[in-house]
């Protein structure tokens, strides 16, 4: 009968009271700090592939891949020793991810997918954004828990990641053991491939929609151009992610550990080397 607007209902929970702030924080945290970290993380990790060039002539004895391992080891070491309050930074990051993920799930559940009916590019990306969000949550949780929090019971081969032996322990954790590929390892590698790809897509596409959400790209042309920019950025990041993974998969953990020891910490390669293979499969 009548469509007169009833008085606005009093806002209910905190979620509704701070609706706008939460929405914007959700969008913001995806870019800073999560996105920024993601870029740094993938660029660093991909040095497994391009790190030889980063060495700028140091360690001429190392081949291309070994050079990457060495460079990567130095990078990680630098981060672990030079970044102040690293734990605090990490906690901020974890909290951001948890916040972004939690709200993300809540928001994603408010939508109803209809790609089957409206198979437009934009709609596919919308659906993919939600799907990759879920995948990324699962993957990042696994990734952080196993490699950072030391939940080694989730790692085939039980490898304990170590910042001193960043490349080799990573390789061992993914491939399933110090000795190289195991069946479980193949599974983990696949998980990494899917997880990294999903995360990168989620970030690049999120960057594209964020520009609309924040009203930076208004005209259709601007949205399209920014779309291409995000596509390029995503492609580059995807390449970085895949090369990190490829770098890890191509390396032999044991020989990598030797390279890492060579360029290793002042504590002395011997002591570390003894450390390194501690976590072999029982």
């Amino acid at each position, binding site marked *: 009968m009548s469509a007169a607007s009833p008085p606005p209902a009093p806002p209910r929970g905190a979620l509704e009271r701070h609706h706008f702030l939460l929405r914007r924080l959700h969008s913001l945290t995806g870019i800073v700090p999560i996105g920024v970290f993601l870029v740094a993380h993938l660029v660093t990790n991909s040095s497994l592939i391009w790190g030889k060039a980063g060495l700028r002539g140091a360690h001429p004895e190392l081949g291309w891949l070994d050079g990457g391992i060495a460079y990567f080891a130095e990078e990680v070491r630098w981060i672990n020793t030079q970044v102040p309050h690293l734990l605090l930074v990490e906690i901020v990051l974890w909290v951001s991810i948890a916040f972004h993920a939690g709200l993300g799930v809540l928001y994603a559940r408010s939508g109803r997918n209809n790609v089957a009916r409206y198979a437009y590019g934009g709609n596919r990306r919308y659906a993919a954004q939600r799907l990759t969000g879920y995948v990324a949550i699962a993957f990042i949780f696994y990734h952080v828990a196993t490699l950072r929090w030391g939940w080694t019971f989730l790692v085939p081969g039980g490898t304990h990641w170590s910042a001193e032996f960043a490349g080799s322990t990573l390789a061992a954790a993914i491939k399933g053991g110090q000795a190289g590929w195991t069946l479980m390892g193949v599974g983990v590698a696949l998980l990494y491939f899917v997880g990294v790809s999903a995360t990168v897509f989620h970030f690049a596409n999120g960057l594209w929609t964020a520009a*609309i959400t924040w009203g930076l790209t*208004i005209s259709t042309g601007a949205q399209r151009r920014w779309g291409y920019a995000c596509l390029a950025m995503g492609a580059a990041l995807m390449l970085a992610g895949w090369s990190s993974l490829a770098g890890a998969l191509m390396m032999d953990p044991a020989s990598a550990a030797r390279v890492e020891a060579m360029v290793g910490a002042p504590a002395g390669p011997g002591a570390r080397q003894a450390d390194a293979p501690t976590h072999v499969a029982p």
Partner: protein
Amino acid sequence: MAYAPPPSVPRRGAATPDRGVVFRIRRCDGPGKPSYWQEFEVAVPRNANVISCLQQIAANPVTAGGARTTPVVWDAGCLEEVCGACTMVINGRVRQSCSCLIDECAPREGDVVTLEPMGKFPVVRDLWVDRSRLFHGLARVRAWVPIDGTYDLGSGPREGPATQAERYVLSTCMSCGCCLEACPQFNLEPDEGRWETAFIGAHAISQARLFNEHPTGSQIKGERLDALMGPGGVSDCGNAQNCVKVCPKGIPLTESIAAVGRSVILHAIARFFRG
């Protein structure tokens, strides 16, 4: 002197006259009743649209199986895609049934045309849905120019042709609801009590932009943005951009969403500092 009814203008590439086309229609006798499918075979003349076939079914409600049934109920008005009344889901896609020519939605012999009511609004009966929520959305964003009254107070603000062109496009929104039907973030909400906080949809966001851009309309821009900052406002949009794809009037809805996104941020910042 006799007045012969005018012949239809032949359409390029038209199908042969009067071919049989099967309509598969999702029916429902009323709210809370189960829906069911019925098929009708209609002799379709050249250049016919979906509405003219529904008219035939209404005049002779017999299913393809020869069973007598009740006439199918649907909504229509202008028959020239300007009132928005006849919106329904045709072959899985939402659009106006008056501008949907059979040669287009069932080009080949033996093609079936599927008709369903819009899914995001409560069904009244058959293909007729209750779209009051759409108009409620317009009230929610105060989609009007707050003039002093309808008495003579001189002319309105001057405006350049470029601004006019921009406003005109936005102003052609006929409240058909296609953008809502296709939006993955806009869901069926029969409970009127929740309309204030459920996602408002692209059409109303675009209308808010239209009135924010008008010199007098902008006087209550703050109220509109407040409404759009809250639950169900512009930030609930997930940028699927289906809305702009299905809008029959070619309204740049995603541009409106971005523009309102920007206004809302600036408004929030201003509000933060002003208190």
